[in-house]
């Protein structure tokens, strides 16, 4: 049996490396469109100010991008190094979007970024703008394919298990691509990236305005960021992940956990604004409810019910019992593929195979099963409520705070008086960390909320790991965290240095703090 320590360490390593990666990705995704906007204005008006804006914000974009690439390399290979059984079991489906991401998106993005930085004097204005646009398209397509892969982990459509090859196999590629879960995630995640990019430019521009330097440069940047940010934050909230909650059981489970909804309420269900979830007794010790809101957000209807945690667990108990049959039949088929009785048993229960595999966390042979063990596995099927409940609320609160900020920023940007509103500029400056916190917490809600599965309903996290030693995991985890932390410090140092210096770092002779060659 796989040791729990190994599983926990493997999860921790994946979480750490993915969260580090996700410090850089949203900014890249958002900044790249800001660069497209700035450069488009430059090409249309010919004003050098907009070229300088593209180049200066591009410089900061580059510092961020370098670490995005560094931390991204790990993720392409970590499925193989640390999640070997996962890679074998679902590689037939999961590998394809990753490979297509490389072919269709990442090549484009990475080739164009070279021309973006070095091609200014060698390309015509229009050619350079085309390069920037292609870089942006590549970046966003990259996010699309990664989220198609991730969406499949939440809602595994278009695939079937084969007992001969002992893995999931793709049956319908387009179902995987047009997985509604993936599409909802894509919109939500890239919009969050756009907000991050906008906040970055808004905050730093505000800082210049507060110091009254490079005013013209900062004002234009602020205006673009305010408009782009407002549109994006609306998109995050309105077209948010919510649209995905009606599809797939994984999302229902997540929804119940992050809403601390123990019972199935009559439709439309109320929304728990604040609650104190009590995991042991499966109830909330205290709750402030807003009637109807949950039902409307979750189902976009007044009459569809949302299942509560108790109902979900009861359903899963049946599936685990049926899954025992599936696993037993599979074992017989692995010994003899012509065993007709086993094949019949397997076909009848194979939809619940994954649920049967949940028990492998506790026993390696099913003759050791007891009702207590089954109960433990049932309880595992819903993630812990309190972390889900609070992280979701933090994310949403940050989203609305940013909506307010960008709303005010846009309002005063249209009126043209934001430069004389130090309170607004200060608010924008201090809000800088908000989108990053929201993104990281959002990642946590989506992925912790999927537990105990790597592939919902198909493959338990517990079985997905590589058979490595715990010592190896301690070593590699320490290595990753140490290496990344050093790089992060270096990155922050450079970012702050150049952000402080401002557009003078371009050495054009038009700004404060000019760089000396």
């Amino acid at each position, binding site marked *: 049996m796989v040791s729990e320590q190994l599983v926990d360490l493997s999860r921790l390593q994946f979480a750490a490396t993915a969260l580090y990666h996700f410090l850089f990705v949203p900014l890249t995704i958002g900044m790249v469109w800001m660069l497209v906007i700035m450069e488009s204005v430059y090409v249309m008006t010919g004003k050098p100010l907009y070229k300088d804006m593209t180049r200066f914000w591009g410089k900061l974009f580059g510092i961020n991008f370098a670490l995005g690439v560094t931390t991204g390399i790990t993720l392409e290979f970590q499925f193989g190094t640390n999640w070997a059984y996962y890679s*074998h079991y679902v590689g037939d489906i999961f590998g394809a979007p990753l490979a297509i991401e490389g072919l269709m998106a990442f090549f484009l993005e990475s080739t164009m970024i070279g021309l973006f930085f070095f091609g200014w004097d060698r390309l015509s204005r229009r050619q350079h703008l085309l390069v920037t646009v292609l870089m942006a398209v590549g970046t966003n397509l990259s996010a699309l394919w990664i989220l198609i892969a991730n969406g499949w982990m939440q809602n595994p459509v278009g695939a079937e298990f084969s007992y001969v090859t002992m893995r999931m196999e793709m049956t319908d590629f387009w179902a995987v691509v047009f997985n509604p879960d993936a599409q909802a995630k894509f919109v939500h995640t890239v919009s969050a990236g756009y907000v991050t990019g906008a906040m970055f430019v808004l905050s730093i521009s505000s800082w210049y305005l507060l110091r009254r330097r490079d005013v013209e440069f900062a004002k234009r940047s602020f205006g673009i960021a305010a408009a782009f940010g407002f549109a994006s934050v609306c998109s995050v909230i309105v077209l948010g992940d919510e649209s995905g909650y009606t599809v797939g059981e994984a999302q229902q489970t997540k929804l119940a956990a992050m809403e601390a909804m123990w019972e199935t309420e009559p439709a439309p269900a109320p929304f728990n604004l604040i609650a104190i979830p009590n995991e042991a007794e499966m109830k909330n010790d205290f709750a402030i409810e807003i009637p109807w809101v949950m039902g409307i957000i979750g189902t976009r209807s007044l009459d569809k019910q949302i299942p509560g945690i108790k109902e979900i667990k009861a359903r899963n108990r049946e599936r685990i019992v049926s899954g025992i049959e599936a696993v037993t039949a599979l074992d017989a088929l692995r010994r003899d593929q012509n065993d007709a009785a086993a094949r019949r048993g397997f076909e009848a229960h194979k939809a619940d195979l994954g649920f049967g595999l949940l028990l492998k966390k506790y026993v390696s042979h099913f003759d050791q099963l007891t009702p207590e063990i089954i109960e433990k596995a049932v309880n595992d099927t819903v993630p812990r409520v309190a972390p889900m409940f609070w992280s979701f609320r933090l994310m949403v609160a940050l989203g609305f705070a940013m909506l307010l900020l960008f709303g005010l920023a846009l309002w005063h940007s249209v009126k043209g008086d934001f430069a004389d509103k130090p309170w607004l500029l200060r608010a924008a400056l201090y809000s800088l960390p908000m989108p990053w916190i929201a993104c990281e917490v959002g990642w946590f809600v989506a992925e912790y909320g999927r537990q105990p599965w790597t592939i919902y309903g198909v493959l338990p996290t517990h079985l997905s790991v590589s058979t490595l030693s715990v010592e190896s995991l301690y070593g590699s985890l320490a290595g990753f965290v140490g290496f990344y932390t050093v790089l992060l410090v270096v990155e922050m140092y450079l970012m702050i240095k150049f952000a402080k210096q401002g557009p003078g770092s371009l050495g054009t002779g038009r700004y404060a703090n000019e760089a000396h060659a």
Partner: protein
Amino acid sequence: MLDYESLKLIWWLLVGVLLVGFAIMDGHDMGVGTLLPFVGKDDTERRVVINTVGPHWDGNQVWFITGGGAIFAAWPLVYATAFSGFYWAMLAVLWALFFRPVGFDYRSKISKPTWRKTWDWGLFVGGAVPPLIFGVAFGNLFQGVPFSFDDHLVSTYSGSFWALLNPFALLCGVVSTAMITFHGAIYLVHRTQGEIQWRALRAAGFFGGLMVLSFVAAGVWLWMGIPGYVIQSAVEGGALPNPLAKTVVREAGAWFANYRIYPATLLLPAFGIVGVFAAQALARSGRSMAAFWASALAIVGVIGTAGAALFPFIMPSSLDPRASLTVWDSVSSQLTLSIMLWATLIFMPIIILYTSWAYRVMGGKVTAAYVRENSHSAY
């Protein structure tokens, strides 16, 4: 949809193409990284060297990422078994590669000499370590890797990282590092002039020689001392993949069987050697572009030589030979192979097209004057 057997063969070729593409494209900028501290004597010279690959290293590195993704999609069992088995070797590659993006992008943003020198050595590590480990990994494939599967195809690797570093594998590491460094040197001859070019030419002389010598030595060692693997049971190319359904034995000289059956494959080792000499001669006579392609041909030859010898094996198991991974039984489903074939056929030409455009736009010699004029934007 093509029949399963043909798809399996095509994917063996395609993975080979991706590997060769990686070695030619990412290889030349890794070679440049390895040579950086030696061919660039002062800061300006080093910036010249770095800027020969400045606009391109990032796109080139995607060959590595895409190669990983393609192996995941087409050979999931290989992706799973090899990367988890070679755990520390793989991490060493990743950690070495970490130095590249930050090394390229951050190095020239601060002018302190210690800062810049530190990143120069970072770029050296990022250039030299990955090819060394890939070579070592290939060396171990020829000897068999100690892994096995249980009934549910959970793989267990029973070796250690240190066992990978055996003499034959290290020799293969020398072949691969010399090959990549040689390739980088030829590229530098093409993109630089004066002193740096002259030093690059000398490096090409040395590493080309080392590459040919070690390549021949590895071949002789393989012939004399390393038994190959042979599938004994009947091979059904179109069957559903199950790596436990065959019997495999070890046999002296088996790694040369394909060369006996298909003598045309002997062209591959010939390319590996002739390519090097041709590249050296062309580089010396000033035809550096042609030299680059000759060096690329040598890479095709060396990687092709290894692939043709191993075929149909990808990763033989020394612990349980029947569990060896082959092109027939460690592949994805017919549908996935077919979709991935289309994706590759559609996107690969497009990639080659815009990559060529990028090189054309940024083409020409990189000079000290260029670095001075662009000191705020160049690497």
